[in-house]
C-alpha cells in the first residue's frame, strides 16, 4: 500500500536519495510482476511497459496525490495513460498502490478479467479514461486540465504518451490548444524510447526536432533520463510547481529497459518471453536489487 501524502510537494521530509531508492525498488517489483503477467497471459507489450516503468513508478509511488480508498476524489491528481497498450506497467502500479488486490494481476487478459488488454475505467478504479487507440489520452488530459483551470483547483494532470503516438494528429490538436490555454496544471511525459511497433520512430515518420515542436506550440520542455529515478523525481517535482504554461518532459528511455536481451529491440514491442528467457529476466532483475 502506498501512503497518501496530501502535504504540499516540496514539504516532504525525505531526501531525494531516499525517495529515489523507494521508487527504484517499486519499479524493480513492477518489472518482475508485469513480466510474470505477460508470461502467464501469453501476450502483452513488454517493450513499452519496461521503458515506461520507472516514470510510472515515480508517479504512483511518490508524486501523485491519490488515495486508493477514494479513487474518484475530486481533488485527486490525474494520471492518463495515453499509450494504453502498456497495461503491464499501469496495472502493476495500480495494484502496487492499492487500487485493487495484487492477486487480480494473475487474471491479466483472462476471460472476464477486469484487466483488459487496454485500460477501462468502468472495470478498474484508478483508471481515468479508456485508452488503447493512440492519440486519445492527451486531448482528455487537456479537458481535465481545463476543468481544473475553470475551477481554480490545484490538482495536477499527468499524461504519459508514447513517442510513436505523436504521429497521431489529435495529439497536436491537443498540444496546440493546451499551449493556447496556458494549462499550467498539465504535464505531458513523452516515453521517448525511439522505437515504435516495427521500427525506429526516426525511420518511420521522424519526430525530431521533438523539443522544438512542443516549444513552438507554447510548452515548456525539459528532457530527462527516464530511467534515473532521482532525475525523474527532481524533474517531476519541478513540474508540480505553479506555472502558466503546460510542460512537456521528454523522458529518454529504452524499450525493454531492465532486461538485457529486450533492451532497445523493436521485436519486444509485443514479444512474450519463453521459460528460459523469463528465468533470465527475473534473475537479472533480482540481481539488480541484490536479492
Amino acid at each position, binding site marked *: 500500500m502506498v501512503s497518501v501524502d496530501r502535504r504540499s510537494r516540496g514539504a516532504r521530509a525525505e531526501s531525494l536519495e531516499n525517495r529515489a531508492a523507494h521508487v527504484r525498488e517499486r519499479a524493480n517489483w513492477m518489472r518482475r510482476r508485469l513480466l510474470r503477467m505477460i508470461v502467464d497471459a501469453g501476450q502483452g507489450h513488454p517493450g513499452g511497459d519496461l521503458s515506461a516503468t520507472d516514470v510510472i513508478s515515480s508517479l504512483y509511488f511518490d508524486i501523485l496525490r491519490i488515495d486508493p480508498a477514494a479513487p474518484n476524489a475530486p481533488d485527486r491528481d490525474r494520471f492518463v495513460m495515453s499509450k494504453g497498450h502498456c497495461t503491464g506497467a499501469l496495472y502493476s502500479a495500480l495494484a502496487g498502490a492499492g487500487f485493487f488486490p495484487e492477486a487480480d494481476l494473475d487474471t491479466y487478459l483472462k476471460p472476464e478479467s477486469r484487466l483488459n488488454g487496454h485500460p477501462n475505467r468502468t472495470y478498474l478504479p484508478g483508471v481515468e479514461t479508456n485508452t488503447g487507440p493512440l492519440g486519445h489520452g492527451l*486531448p482528455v488530459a*487537456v479537458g*481535465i486540465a*481545463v*476543468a481544473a483551470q475553470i*475551477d481554480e483547483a490545484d490538482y495536477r494532470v499527468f499524461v504519459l504518451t508514447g513517442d510513436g503516438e505523436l504521429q497521431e494528429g489529435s495529439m497536436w*490538436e491537443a498540444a496546440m490548444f493546451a499551449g493556447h490555454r496556458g494549462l499550467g496544471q498539465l504535464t505531458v511525459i513523452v516515453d521517448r524510447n525511439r522505437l515504435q511497433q516495427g521500427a525506429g520512430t526516426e525511420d518511420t515518420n521522424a519526430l525530431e526536432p521533438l523539443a522544438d515542436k512542443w516549444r513552438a506550440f507554447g510548452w515548456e520542455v525539459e528532457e530527462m533520463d527516464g530511467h534515473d529515478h532521482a532525475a525523474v523525481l527532481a524533474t517531476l517535482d519541478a513540474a508540480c510547481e505553479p506555472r502558466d504554461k503546460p510542460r512537456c518532459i521528454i523522458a529518454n528511455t529504452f524499450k525493454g529497459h531492465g532486461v538485457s536481451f529486450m533492451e532497445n529491440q523493436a521485436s519486444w514491442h509485443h514479444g512474450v518471453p519463453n521459460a528460459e528467457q523469463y528465468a533470465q529476466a527475473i534473475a537479472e532483475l533480482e540481481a539488480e536489487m541484490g536479492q
Partner: protein
Amino acid sequence: MSAAAAPTGMFDCRDAYVHTIEELAVADERIVAVVNDSVGSSKLGKFRDRFPRRLINVGIAEQNMVGVGAGLANGGKIPFVSGASCFLSARALEQIKADCAYSQANVKLCGISSGVAYGELGATHHSIEDVAWLRAIDKLTVIVPADPWETAEAIKAAVAHDGPVYIRISRMPVPELARDKPVFNIGKAETLRAGGDIAIIANGTLVHRALAAAEALAAEGVSARVINMATVSPIDTRAIADAAATGSIVTAEEGLAHGGLGGAVAEYCAQNVPVRMRMLGFPGFLPTGSAAWLMDRFGLNADGIAAAARDLLGVKVG
C-alpha cells in the same frame, strides 16, 4: 445559410437548445459548452457572453474537442460539445466511441445543422450517416428531437442522465407539435396520432411531414398511427411491437434510408414481429440542392410518406 428569421409559427431548434442550456447553466455550474469555432452556427454567443469562462472554443479540431469534453466530464463538468453534426459525428467517431461511450463519460454531444440543412454545400456537409454510425455505439444515447419543446426537453433529460448522449439538432425551421399532455422520457416513443391501419414511425423534421401524410391518408379512409421515435438508442421496442400489430410500418427520417431509425425498427421487427415495411430516407451521396428541394426530391415529405403507405397497403388512388 445566414440566420434568416424563421417564418411565422416556425422555430429554429437551435434557439431552444441554447436557451435551455443557458437556463440550466444559471443553476448548475457544472454545465459548460465546448465548440469547434462554431459559436455562431451553434448560436452560443449569448452563452459565451453570460458565462465566458464556461465557453471553451478549441478551434477547428473535432477529435480534440470530443476528447476535451471527456476530460471536462472527468473534472466534474457537464460539457455540451457542439459542432456541425457532419464533422462531430464523423471526424471524432473514435473519440465518441472510446472517450465518451466506452469510458461512460458524462458528455452531451450536440450535432448542429443535422441532416441536409447544408444542402447546397454538398455531401461532405450533409449529416445523413450520423444516426446509423452513432446508434451502433453501445451505451451512447441517441436522440433526434422534432421541435423546440422536444429539443429543450431532450437537453434537460440529457443533463439528468449520467452518461453520454448525442442530440441531433436541426437548423431547418419546424412548427411546434401540438400535444395534449407532453411528457419526454429518454427511450420512450410518443404516439402523436392514433391509427390502426398502418404505423408511421418518424423523428426529427419528418414527424411534421408524417402527421400531414396521416391527415391525407385519413381523407382516403386510411387510419395511420404516427409515432415520434425521438430516441433511436435505446429504442422503444414496445412501441415498435405495437406498431407492427397494425401490419404495416413506414419509417421516415432525415438521414440514410438504411442504418438509422429505419434500420433500428427493421432489426427489431425482422427478429421479433415480422411486418411489411418501407424505410424512407436518403439513398446516399446527394446532388446539389437546398434542404427543402432535397427533401422533396427524395420523397421525404407528406406526399412521399403517404405514397409509401398506400403502396404498402396496396391502396390504389385515383
